[in-house]
């Protein structure tokens, strides 16, 4: 019988053929935590009395949520992670290296891997054809120590996207549209699988946006097929030998198939306070914004900074709108610098932050004031998300955020790109 990508990858790690609904113990290739969830994972490993890790070189601790540290308590939490890494041989990704999900695809994940991460957006790595999912600190701690976890094999929703996205419309708009369709809990416990000519045509940077936001529809992971583009992505990072082709078999069972015509998608905006509360940009246009934020594990990659620079070149942010730029990793930051994008963004009035999660998680670097509005390229607009329950977070593509920063209000980027 044909298997889905999720069934294939989990089956390989469970050592037997599996089908959706099975509960299995599976081998874990990569276990990752960040500075918000890692200290608790370290505590749990100590409580359990584990002195060694199954595979320390694939147990990775990322300092990204509060990097550099804005407070003494967090500096101490970082010290705990550094001490744990040096004691166990786990890998530490330091301040300035970048966000867990971007760093994982740059340096660790290969198609067919099974990854668990103590961060809900761990589904991002699914864009490389890996089964990657978010869990809590204790689950990931045990994954690091024992090299395995328990999983229910998910049913798959196959999202078939065909046609060409119009100018000014990006993978972010597509995924916001899809989440509006499925709703915030429409894919709970399911795997999303993105296929079709639109996805095949996407760069890895664009595919990562889709996988990243799968969890915003409740999904366990967001998978893309591993193809020639995946191979080039790995080869460019010195890991071409880790490539293998992966896709669902003909005749695989999908619980639901969703067909989308990409040519009909418009720039989308998620309005407060849920991600599935989506509007077209024309419906949201005119809303004054105090801050525009371009970055995060959703849209802080090179392609995103390129489009932001293209729109902001020779322009300036609106005097009433702050512009915060945060590259997703050091590699992204260096590439954006070499290509001149950072110069353009700084000249346009942007404040460029060290690679990391930045303002997205409400810890530092752009906390909103009471009643303030931010247009962000992140994946979440929950109440309180950017550090203040009295703030309002809207979500969009980097193009919409960049153009809106110039206008001082939510605006349609097709006005300049069309």
């Amino acid at each position: 019988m044909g298997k889905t990508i999720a069934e294939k990858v989990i089956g390989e790690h469970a050592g037997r053929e599996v089908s959706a609904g099975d509960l299995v113990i599976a081998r874990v290739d990569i276990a990752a935590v960040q500075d918000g969830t890692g200290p608790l994972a370290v505590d749990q490993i100590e409580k359990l009395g584990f002195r060694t890790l199954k595979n320390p070189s694939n147990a990775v601790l990322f300092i990204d949520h509060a990097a550099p540290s804005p407070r003494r308590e967090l500096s101490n939490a970082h010290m705990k992670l550094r001490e744990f890494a040096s004691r166990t041989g786990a890998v530490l990704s330091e301040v300035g290296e970048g966000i867990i999900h971007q760093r994982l695809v740059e340096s660790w994940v290969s198609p067919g891997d099974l990854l668990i991460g103590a961060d809900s957006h761990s589904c991002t790595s699914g864009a490389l054809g890996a089964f990657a999912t978010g869990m809590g600190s204790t689950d990931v701690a045990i994954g690091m120590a024992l090299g395995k976890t328990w999983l229910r094999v998910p049913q798959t929703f196959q999202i078939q996207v065909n046609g060409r996205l119009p100018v000014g419309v990006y993978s972010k708009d597509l995924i916001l549209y899809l989440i509006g369709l499925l709703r915030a809990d429409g894919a709970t416990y399911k795997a999303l699988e993105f296929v079709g000519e639109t996805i095949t045509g996407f760069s890895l940077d664009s595919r990562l946006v889709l996988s990243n936001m799968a969890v915003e529809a409740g999904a366990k992971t967001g998978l893309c097929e591993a193809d020639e583009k995946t191979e080039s992505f790995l080869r460019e990072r010195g890991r071409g030998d880790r490539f293998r082709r992966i896709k669902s078999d003909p005749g695989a069972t999908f619980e639901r198939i969703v067909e989308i015509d990409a040519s009909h998608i418009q720039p989308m905006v998620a309005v407060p306070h849920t991600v599935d509360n989506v509007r077209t940009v024309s419906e949201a246009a005119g809303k004054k914004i105090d801050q525009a934020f371009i970055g995060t594990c959703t849209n802080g990659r090179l392609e995103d900074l390129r489009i932001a620079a293209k729109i902001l070149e020779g322009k300036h942010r609106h005097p009433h709108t702050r512009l915060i730029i945060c590259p997703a990793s050091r590699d992204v930051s260096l590439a954006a610098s070499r290509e001149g994008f950072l110069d353009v963004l700084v000249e346009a009035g942007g404040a460029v932050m060290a690679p990391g999660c930045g303002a997205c998680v409400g810890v530092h670097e752009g906390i909103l004031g009471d009643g303030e509005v931010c247009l962000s390229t992140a994946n979440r607009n929950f109440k309180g998300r950017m550090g203040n329950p009295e703030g309002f977070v809207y979500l969009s593509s980097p193009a919409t955020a960049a153009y809106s920063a110039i206008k001082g209000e939510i605006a349609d980027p097709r006005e300049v790109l069309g």
Partner: protein
Amino acid sequence: MRLRGKAWKFGDNISTDLICPGRYFHLRSNLPELAKHVLEDADPEFAQKMSQGDLVVGGRNFGCGSSREHAPTIMKIAGVSAVLAKSFARIFYRNGINVGLPLLECDTSKIDEGDELEVDPASGKVLNVTKRIELASRPLPQAMINILNDGGLVAHITKHGDFYVNGP
């Protein structure tokens, strides 16, 4: 294990940001202090108002968002005995059981704030004592009952030395 307490009612999509706000990120190394802010952005007075053993009752997609295990952990530290909701987000569901906080899916529209509830997590029996009605709940998967009965995932692994979720 039979739990009894008063219902505190919340709506749909109660995110882990509402349960455990990001602005208290620095308190994650001090869980008793963090627990004083439990559910603060959904109801600023909740931590002061609730009593030990009370139940949190939500709508759809309870616990959506971030994987922070601190969210169910501080609910447990604050004294919440169980959470009932129409549905739970996946990571929160797993985390709740891992930290030993019983979670049950049932039709919470038949519960009002202040109702006295009695819950048996193993059998999935939910009784609205105030309204004298029994609510059908979706039973937890056996694997999760095994973890919950051991007192959470750390206790489960300590007891068995490995995953023993499929039981004997």
